[in-house]
């Protein structure tokens, strides 16, 4: 299986502090991967680097067929390549309706002129309705996103990610602030998504990771400490040391 994303030996130093230290990582085209690690391990910074928000000091980030380098692209170009990202905190456009939020995320040309010419079509409206139904927001489609509950905002954001149909989905701590039922729904959704695309899930919660039932990468001090099945990594003495040793 050839890799969809391949990260080779990246490092990033913030004010003398090595947040990412010679990190390598790769993921296949249809694969679910959990990334765990203690606070400050560099999980969010890793996502920042892949999505173009942060430039690494060294290393390579290669993408898809032909191994294009992502380091030469800006955030918007990387997003258009098909990398979607869900932030830790739900970030939806609160002053706009659920429908408007979803419409913006729909697959379509992104340039100003193309957006100016864009008109809603029966197709686009059906797609918005379908997405809203998928994330359980059918009854709220004309409401402002700002009025939704925290969990509903998370779902709206997931809906927006689905709308753009990314090839790689980066999800930062999706379970934070969710109820048990919502967590279960979320794991089901993530597993289903990973059938057709690559999904990287950053998570603290071990139960949640266990339910994902996938390969796990353990980050510590900016590099990979262990990789394998959850049972495999939790038997690793280094991992036990990191998680239990402090």
């Amino acid at each position, binding site marked *: 299986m050839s890799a969809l994303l391949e990260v080779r030996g990246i490092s990033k130093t913030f004010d003398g502090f090595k947040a990412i230290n010679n990190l390598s990582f790769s993921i296949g085209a249809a694969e679910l991967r959990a990334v765990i690690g203690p606070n400050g391990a560099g999980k969010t910074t890793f996502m920042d680097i892949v999505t173009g928000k942060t430039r690494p000091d060294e290393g390579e980030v290669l993408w898809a067929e032909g191994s294009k380098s992502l380091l030469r692209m800006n955030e918007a170009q990387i997003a258009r390549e098909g990398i979607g990202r869900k932030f830790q905190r739900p970030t939806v*456009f609160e002053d706009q309706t659920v429908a408007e939020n979803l419409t913006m995320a729909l697959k379509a040309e992104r*340039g100003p002129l193309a957006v100016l010419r864009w008109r809603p079509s029966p197709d686009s409206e059906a797609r918005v309705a379908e997405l809203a139904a998928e994330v359980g927001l059918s009854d709220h489609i004309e409401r402002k996103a*700002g009025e939704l509950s925290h969990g509903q905002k998370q779902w709206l954001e997931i809906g927006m990610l689905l709308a753009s149909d990314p090839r790689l989905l980066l999800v930062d701590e999706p379970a934070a602030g969710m109820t048990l039922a919502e967590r279960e729904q979320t794991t089901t959704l993530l597993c289903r998504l990973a059938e057709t695309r690559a999904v990287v899930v950053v998570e603290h919660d071990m139960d949640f990771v266990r339910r994902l039932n996938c390969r796990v990468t353990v980050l510590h001090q900016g590099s990979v400490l262990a990789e394998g099945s959850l049972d495999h990594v939790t038997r690793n003495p280094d991992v036990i040391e990191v998680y239990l040793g402090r």
Partner: protein
Amino acid sequence: MTRTPFVLRHPSVLVVLTVLAVFTAAVTAGSAAYGSGAIPVSMIKLLGKTLCLALAAVAMDLVWGYLGILSLGQMAFFGLGGYMIGQWLMYARTETIVAAQLAQQPIPATAQELQDAVTNQIFGVVGSSELPLVWSFAHSLTAQLILVLAVPGLLALVFGWLAFRSRVNGVYLSILTQAMTLALALWLFQNDSGFRGNNGLSGLQNIPGLDHVGQATLSVWFLWASALALALGYALAAWLVSGKFGSVVRAIRDDETRVRFLGYPVEGFKLAVFTIAAMMTAVAGALYYPQAGIINPAELMPIASIYLAVWVAIGGRGRLYGAVIGAVIVSLLSSWFTGGRAPSIHLPGYVVNWVDWWQVALGLTFVLVTLFAPKGIAGLFDRLSGILPPRRHGRDLGPDQGALQEKEATA
């Protein structure tokens, strides 16, 4: 699927355009040239100028209220529009006058002599006898009309490209826009910049070729032109901020980073809105200064742009009609209070003279509006039409500096 026509989806556009049409008709009916003559020419000019300011405010609202950039240099574009049309007005009129004088001489003047005489007439005040390069097209109305759009548009494009590309945001961007207008004003103040230094351009109320028409009629024509420009500008702005484009623009205001991760080229959108707004402002300026009669570099000083921001804030940013209302009410009140016609208030031991105190009152109003009614005058309309802020749990609508506060958002 049939789409409801644009004006029906946005009834406020229809209301604004109707009010504008009724207003224009009423003023025309009161003018000396086309009606009863109840409204003096100076008043008609004031109203015409006010419509131009309202157009500048609509553009400011696009940039600030919708895109989230508090530009404190918008009046640079207004002034540039004025200078560009002013060049032709001054050149062409001086040419007519000089040609008439030279015609009295026994030997007919050559084209070069004519141009030299015009140059002397215009640039004598700054001790120059050569036509500056920047006046190369001043003889041509068409060329100068193109420049009205092209020069401010290009300035906005270059400035915006540099600023947005390096991701300057918030207060720093505001300061940068202010530096831009200040630098432009200081450059224009110099005699050798070719725009007559602090003398500015004058006599702009006399339109070449229309000497026989008279100011009473001309003032009404300019009122019509200003009203038409405002109507078109308003409709254009309303169209821009509706639909998906408007959605993206407001999203950039509230959370620019997030918009990038959706794949939108944020800089391109900023540049488009900033440049369109600059050109709208320039058209407003090009219609304003022929009614004012004179333009000088002081008009481009940052304070003018700050006033524009104050009008939009008082009217209600993020509402196009708010910008119009704010600009009309505050600028008319300003000229009333500072024109010395407002009755002074006699307090025991002190006389409040409005010419001195108006600025203070305006500043105070601005602070009060910002604190207690961030939606400005437009907020009253929202309340009447039942638009209430959403009941929400968070406060700011987004982490960016330009994001609307909770109190400003519509339901």
